[in-house]
């Protein structure tokens, strides 16, 4: 009697060794894919979407690359997932986390083939990860007390992050910009209040951080182009035909005159509303929704600048910078908080007109205008800047920093190696493997820069044998150098997240001994 199949038709089941192989290979393939983007000399990838227009993205950002891949291998999906989380949580290190997880699995594969049980490997990895974290904690620097030093730390971190990206040419310029922007946030991690405006044209060097706030909108015709000492009302209200919200109401008329009357009443209503708004004593009105021609005309008559269609985030940011509240009813003008700014004017960037609010009261939000040769460049610049901003905002909260350039990996590898020597039993093999996986990161950085990685890493290891050494790989000169002198810093939080997420992911994949793929859901025929 054959065993009845217990799954549906298209489902498949893989067991034991085969399942493990499938997941190892999938995960390693993904890691290898992004491996070449690691480090300051990492290469970029072109991604072409299969959607309409075959739009092209050029990027160096691990998370962006992995997000756009359509992956079928379940283990590979785990890696994509951790990279995404890394992006959400700390913003940088998205490539490192995948590469490290891939290396951990590569080492694990070797151990599995030499008949070490996955559970033993996991136990070893856990011990090693804990030890590595301790090693990092011992060597962190914290300059929170010293504001000037802290700022220079931030600058260095920003430059380290940016140097692997397209912005590396002007990294000082951009690092300055990013640090300034972060200081304006005053400790908040809400990056929403930093607006990035991309305008093609000019060169990357022309990008700038604006003290005030820029709204990518045009000023209505016939309205003042320049307002000094502006009083701004930020609103979210319907300024088209203000519909009756009572359910079931409809207009039923029996003659043309009645239509005209109702229309008149409607206009009257709108006029009332506009008058109420004007009663706030404002000279600038920004609405999230559409403003019809009629009210716009009324505003123009009153000499008020009316801006329509500012999207929701724009409104929120404007509320933040000018200190005004977002209003939807206008019956009691005396108690509505208005926003203030010194000057509103229309400015030209490239060929586009934008509205510029300067001399704002609160200043918790700011705008960064990016210029660049093409959309691709701008998109990539935005992503890079976003990475830098994320890392900086996290560092402001957790001010511990480390050196970069493969230094933390070497420090960890050394400690982990020592642990391996002390540990009895099969686990020590796994711990040793962990340290090998850590060393793979400086190796990859060197490889990507076209350097002799074997030589460099060996030198590095020798140097790290001394206590308190600051050596790392200096990709620019192609030799081992002092990272502190070179000013290559990384945030502790990023490194820690890389270490822990990668170990967690590797562990998760290692624990699997069976893959069951369900039958794909049948698409309804849409024809």
């Amino acid at each position, binding site marked *: 009697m054959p065993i009845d199949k217990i799954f549906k038709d298209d489902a498949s089941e893989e067991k034991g060794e085969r399942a493990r192989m499938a997941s190892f290979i999938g995960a390693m393939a993904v890691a290898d894919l992004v491996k070449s983007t690691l480090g300051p000399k990492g290469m970029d990838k072109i991604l072409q979407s299969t959607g309409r227009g075959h739009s092209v993205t050029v990027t160096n950002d691990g998370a962006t690359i992995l997000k756009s891949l359509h992956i079928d291998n379940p283990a590979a999906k785990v890696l994509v997932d951790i990279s995404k989380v890394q992006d959400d949580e700390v913003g940088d290190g998205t490539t490192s986390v995948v590469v490290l997880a891939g290396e951990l699995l590569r080492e694990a594969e070797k151990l599995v083939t030499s008949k070490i049980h996955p*559970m033993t490997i996991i136990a070893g990895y856990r011990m090693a990860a804990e030890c590595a974290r301790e090693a990092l904690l011992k060597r962190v620097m914290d300059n929170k007390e010293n504001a000037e030093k802290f700022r220079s730390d931030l600058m260095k971190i920003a430059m380290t992050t940016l140097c692997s990206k397209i912005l590396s040419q002007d990294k000082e310029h951009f690092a300055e910009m990013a640090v300034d922007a972060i200081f304006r946030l005053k400790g908040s991690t809400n990056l929403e209040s930093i607006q990035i405006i991309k305008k093609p044209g000019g060169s990357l060097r022309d990008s700038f951080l604006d003290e005030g706030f820029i709204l990518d909108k045009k000023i209505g015709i016939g309205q003042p182009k320049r307002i000094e000492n502006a009083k701004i009302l930020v609103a979210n209200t319907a300024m088209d035909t203000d519909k009756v919200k009572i359910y079931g109401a409809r207009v039923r008329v029996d003659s043309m005159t009645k239509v005209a009357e109702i229309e008149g009443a409607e206009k009257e209503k709108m006029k009332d509303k506009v008058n109420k708004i004007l009663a706030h004593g404002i000279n600038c009105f920004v609405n999230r929704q559409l403003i019809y021609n009629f009210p716009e005309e009324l505003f123009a008559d009153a000499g008020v600048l009316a801006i329509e269609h500012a999207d929701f985030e724009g409104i929120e940011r404007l509320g933040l910078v000018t200190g005004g509240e977002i209003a939807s009813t206008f019956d009691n003008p005396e108690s509505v908080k208005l926003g203030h700014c010194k000057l509103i004017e229309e400015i030209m960037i490239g060929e586009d007109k934008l509205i510029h609010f300067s001399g704002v009261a609160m200043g918790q939000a700011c705008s960064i205008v990016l210029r660049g040769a093409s959309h691709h460049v701008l998109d990539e610049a935005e992503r890079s800047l976003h990475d830098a901003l994320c890392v900086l905002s996290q560092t402001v909260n957790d001010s511990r920093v480390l050196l970069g350039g493969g230094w933390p990996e070497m420090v960890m590898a050394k400690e982990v190696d020592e642990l391996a020597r002390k540990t009895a039993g099969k686990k020590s093999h796994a711990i040793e493997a962990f340290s090998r996986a850590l060393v793979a990161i400086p190796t990859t950085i060197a490889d990507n820069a076209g350097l002799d990685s074997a030589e460099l890493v060996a030198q590095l290891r020798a140097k790290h044998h001394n206590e308190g050494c600051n050596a790392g790989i200096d990709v620019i000169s192609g030799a081992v150098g002092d990272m502190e002198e070179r000013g290559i810093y990384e945030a502790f939080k990023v490194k820690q997240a890389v270490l822990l997420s990668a170990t967690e992911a590797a562990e998760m994949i290692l624990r699997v001994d069976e893959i069951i793929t369900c039958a794909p859901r049948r698409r309804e025929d849409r024809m």
Partner: protein
Amino acid sequence: MALAFDEFGRPFIILREQDQKTRLRGIDAQKANIAAGKAVARILRSSLGPKGMDKMLQGPDGDVTISNDGATILEQMDVDNQIAKLMVELSRSQDYEIGDGTTGVVVMAGALLEQAERQLDRGIHPIRIAEGYETASRVAVEHLERIAQKFEFDVNNYEPLVQTCMTTLSSKIVNRCKRSLAEIAVKAVLAVADLERRDVNLDLIKVEGKVGGKLEDTELIYGILVDKDMSHPQMPKQIEDAHIAILTCPFEPPKPKTKHKVDIDTVEKFETLRKQEQQYFDEMVQKCKDVGATLVICQWGFDDEANHLLMHRNLPAVRWVGGVELELIAIATGGRIVPRFQELTPEKLGKAGMVREKSFGTTKERMLYIEHCANSKAVTIFIRGGNKMMIEETKRSIHDALCVARNLIRNNSIVYGGGAAEITCSLAVDAAADKYPGVEQYAIRAFAEALDSVPMALAENSGLQPIETLSAVKSQQIKENIPFYGIDCNDVGTNDMREQNVFETLIGKQQQILLATQVVKMILKIDDVISNSEY
């Protein structure tokens, strides 16, 4: 295929579309069913115990789940075979009833089926086997009752509870921080437990997860966590000593249920309607304000105008809060859910010491903490973890731990884990077998053998020699007549489960044996399978 024939040898058609059905009868049917049941059990066998492996499941939409929890694996497996579905049901009912031991129950059932197959080959009638199993399971359950120990704990001394939860968690991926998670689970259960009535309402414990951070950041919040933010970005982010109005009516003009139409045909009507509308919003906000609410939590959305009025009157509000959360908030804050503005009274407001909004990570994710509630019965466990799968798996593990803690509060008898309970049951059943005359004796012995398969699987998964280890432990149990010896899965160096602090709840174990026996009985009783053939 045909069942009956007339005098000319033509078959009578008894089943509709008879030729399109396949039919298995008699011993073949039983064999096929047993094979299917065994196949399911075999999948789960390697997940058993602290060193059990995980399964990776790819769902129909390509989503990936990694789990070690028997119930989850079976649920996601999407099986097609009828008997396999029975096994899925089996693990699910263990999950509902006890919450833990979902893998064990399936492995147990698989072992029973395997033994039954052997008995069938001997020519024993399936019903006799079923009866023998029934008798044996009674013996085993009674024996468990005898060896069970009372297990003392109280609100201040919850260490024993933590130990038990740690046993449960040790088989999951979260065993890295099993200590802290177990403590969280126990504290959560104790916070909501009614120790007088020995009852725990698990609905009061909400388990929320958010991707990011690390497992160590998981925390227990004495209050409610809502995945929402304030309806207006400029509302205050922190409210102390909040009086909460919990509403299920929208801040929108009323929508009468009866069909109606308001016809506007004159300017006057248009004007009055407009006035009316403004009044509505004003009244709504005023009513909330009048009763002294300092926070409004609403199940529905707000109109833009109402939203601004709320903000303007300095009345923070949260919108689109789900029904379940709303109930939890109401329970925790001691408030009443109010379906109409007219019915708002100060007594119906909920009270909380602190409500605050907290943001996470670099994306704009905010959550609302409602803490220090008037009636702090509801708690939330907030899980952080590296990725979505990790969080899901942690949620399931925490659920198991919560269930175990609850079971202990309900009934504080325990038996020892690590296969110890199964081994002693096996010995007891084996001894009892000889007292039964008749064919059942064989079935009872088979039951004893099946019980051995759980510790066997444990040993196998831990990389030990299964037969060697099992026989050593067994002889040790008999020699010293102590039922605490089990499989040393964690390589600690002792077989004494008391020292290792590995125990399970008595009801959980009993339930496992009873449920597995029932399902096996059911499968054995099937002697005819009629199914639609594929084409």
